[in-house]
């Protein structure tokens, strides 16, 4: 099986999401000829994942979200793309990627295989009536299943749950949100901002059941029943589970790469084994798991430089997270909470400006809603970077 190691072996990228394609594009800006290969479990269509939660607002079908198919991308990027191909293992010692019995040689390997949706217990997630929407294929299937139905029950009130709630409402659906947290977007927003978003969504007609969890989902003919742990029962047509994402780490751990919440990397996006890198939603960069587009773009640019011979640590400034709830837009930089830090908030209607300051008055984070989001840029400039420029070597 062993193949001679040559420089002609490709840089292999696993995954055709924003991380994989952005990296390929950045590499091609620097090097037109380095052999590149992408392996992806899906059809390799290039699309912008954040648009999955604005589909009704913008009136886009799954096909309309496709920016380019795998064939067009392969040509544009001068790269071989193997679609519908699931990597089953890595053998870093041999510089091999395993696809069942097949072994592929790589010069350098980039894991850009994203994150899995968190499943609820089988009594809930085991039901065929429950969908999660984490990629274009899910979106296509969900659209079909929705058909002429009206009532959607959404499990989860995080960023993605709130975005789907707003979007489905804009699409004319009856939306009920169920979540065990007492507020929307816990962990991301301070209570004052969360209550503004919730109020705005309620004014649009979204119903919330917070502080309760779904215990079981039962199909009753065409309808679905969601049983809550406070004894209540909700009737709907379709259930969407949006309870969070978890970086895909299993294949990495199996190959003895160091993993924690995500696949551990340093600022060069290098994992614990030579010539294997991780990028995007699956990566944990110096302790940070940031499953957003901006961090992955910055990482992809740095990694492209590294892989083309110019080792470049990634730098992350303050990167505000924008929540696409058109009824009450949100921009937030979640602070690292400190012992003496405090939130100071101004609220007028659903317009909130909340800033988090340390004991010495330094701005560590903020949350803006409604028309206060225009202050995002100004405040972001004051917040310390996530990964400071490294000390000169």
């Amino acid at each position, binding site marked *: 099986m062993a193949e001679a190691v040559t420089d002609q072996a490709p840089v292999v990228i696993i995954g055709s999401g*924003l991380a994989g394609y952005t990296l390929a594009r950045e590499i091609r800006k620097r090097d037109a000829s380095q052999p590149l290969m992408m392996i992806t479990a899906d059809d390799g269509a290039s699309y*912008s994942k954040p*648009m999955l939660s*604005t589909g009704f607002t*913008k009136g886009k079908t799954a096909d309309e979200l496709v920016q380019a198919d795998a064939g067009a991308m392969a040509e544009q990027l001068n790269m071989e793309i193997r679609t519908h191909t699931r990597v089953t293992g890595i053998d870093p010692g041999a510089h091999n990627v395993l696809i069942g019995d097949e072994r592929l040689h790589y010069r350098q390997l980039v894991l850009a295989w994203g994150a899995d949706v968190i499943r609820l217990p089988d009594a809930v997630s085991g039901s065929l009536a429950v969908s999660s929407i984490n990629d274009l294929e899910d979106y296509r299937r969900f659209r079909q299943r929705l058909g002429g139905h009206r009532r959607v029950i959404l499990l989860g009130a995080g960023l993605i749950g709130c975005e789907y709630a707003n979007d489905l409402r804009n699409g004319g659906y009856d939306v009920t949100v169920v979540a065990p947290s007492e507020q929307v977007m816990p962990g991301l927003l301070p209570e004052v901002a969360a209550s503004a978003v919730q109020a705005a969504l309620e004014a649009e007609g979204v119903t919330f059941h917070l502080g309760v969890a779904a215990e079981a989902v039962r199909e009753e003919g065409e309808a679905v029943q969601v049983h809550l742990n406070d004894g209540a029962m909700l009737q709907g047509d379709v259930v969407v589970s949006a309870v969070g994402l978890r970086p895909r780490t299993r294949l990495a751990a199996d190959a003895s790469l160091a993993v924690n919440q995500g696949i551990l990397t340093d600022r060069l996006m290098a994992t614990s084994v030579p010539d294997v890198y991780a990028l995007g939603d699956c990566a944990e960069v110096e302790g940070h798991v940031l499953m957003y587009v901006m961090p992955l*773009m910055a990482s992809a640019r740095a990694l492209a430089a590294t892989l083309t011979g110019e080792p470049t640590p990634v730098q992350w400034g303050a990167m505000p997270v*924008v929540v*696409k709830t058109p009824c009450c837009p949100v921009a937030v930089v979640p602070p690292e909470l400190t012992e003496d830090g405090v939130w100071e908030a101004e609220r007028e209607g659903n317009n909130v400006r909340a800033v988090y300051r340390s004991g010495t008055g330094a701005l560590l984070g903020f949350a803006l809603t409604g028309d206060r989001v225009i202050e995002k840029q100004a405040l972001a400039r004051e917040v310390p970077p996530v990964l400071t420029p490294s000390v000169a070597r």
Partner: protein
Amino acid sequence: MKKWQCVVCGFIYDEAEGWPEDGIAPGTAWEDVPEDWECPDCGVGKEDFEMIEIS
């Protein structure tokens, strides 16, 4: 005239139409859009993301 798409949110900037709401006249090429311009839909800055050429 080209079209550019924001990879974060899918917003399309059409050079032929510009973005008059922000004072960007029809016919303004992407490279002439001010560096501090932000995506009208998701707010990311021009320098922080890629607009992908789509036609």
